[in-house]
């Protein structure tokens, strides 16, 4: 069964460093999402992406964040200068055009 994959599974970085989180959505899906979950808290929407552009972003998704679909398979989330409060689990999700979003296993980011 097709699934969303994410790499790396864990990443530790120093505050102020740039990180790139990678996702490979399900191949025929058209809509892509990033969510994050701070430890012990709820899952929060960051950004949605369709037709090579951002369709919606949350207040969390400030200028330090960017997304890109550099080729036909990858979907990346970049944090330019990480802060301590960026430590969280980051989930990628994709959808074909229906209603069910399929989530990847997540990348656990720890900013020291």
């Amino acid at each position, binding site marked *: 069964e097709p699934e969303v994959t994410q790499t790396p599974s864990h990443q530790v970085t120093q505050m102020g460093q740039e990180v790139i989180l990678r996702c490979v959505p399900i191949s025929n899906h058209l809509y892509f999402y990033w969510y994050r979950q701070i430890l012990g808290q709820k899952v929060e*929407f960051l950004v949605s992406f369709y037709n090579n552009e951002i369709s*919606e972003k949350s207040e969390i998704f400030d200028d330090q964040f960017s997304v890109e679909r550099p080729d036909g398979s990858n979907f990346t989330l970049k944090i330019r200068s990480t802060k301590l409060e960026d430590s969280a689990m980051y989930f990628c999700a994709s959808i074909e055009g229906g209603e069910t979003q399929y*989530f990847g296993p997540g990348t656990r980011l720890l900013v020291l």
Partner: protein
Amino acid sequence: SQQGEEDPQALSIQEGENATMNCSYKTSINNLQWYRQNSGRGLVHLILIRSNEREKHSGRLRVTLDTSKKSSSLLITASRAADTASYFCATVRVTGANSKLTFGKGITLSVRP
């Protein structure tokens, strides 16, 4: 906001018992979905119910939706120890090309063997 809010926050039951989890939300929705998350892992989609539906079943899962009360419930029948996880409701309001999920805080279910 149209956040889903679940209750109870934590539920502990004996294997074989039924588990009922509730979710309330604030604004109109297109559909409501329930997800499961094992500790520190990804989100697994369980079931979706549309705003014009009142009840759906999938295996041991039964979900109801009352749009007049803006609430939903997830029932897991004949629970198993493997059902131990966090459960989240998430509402969807489709706007144009976007159908973002808005999650509640989750319910921690513990099923004792």
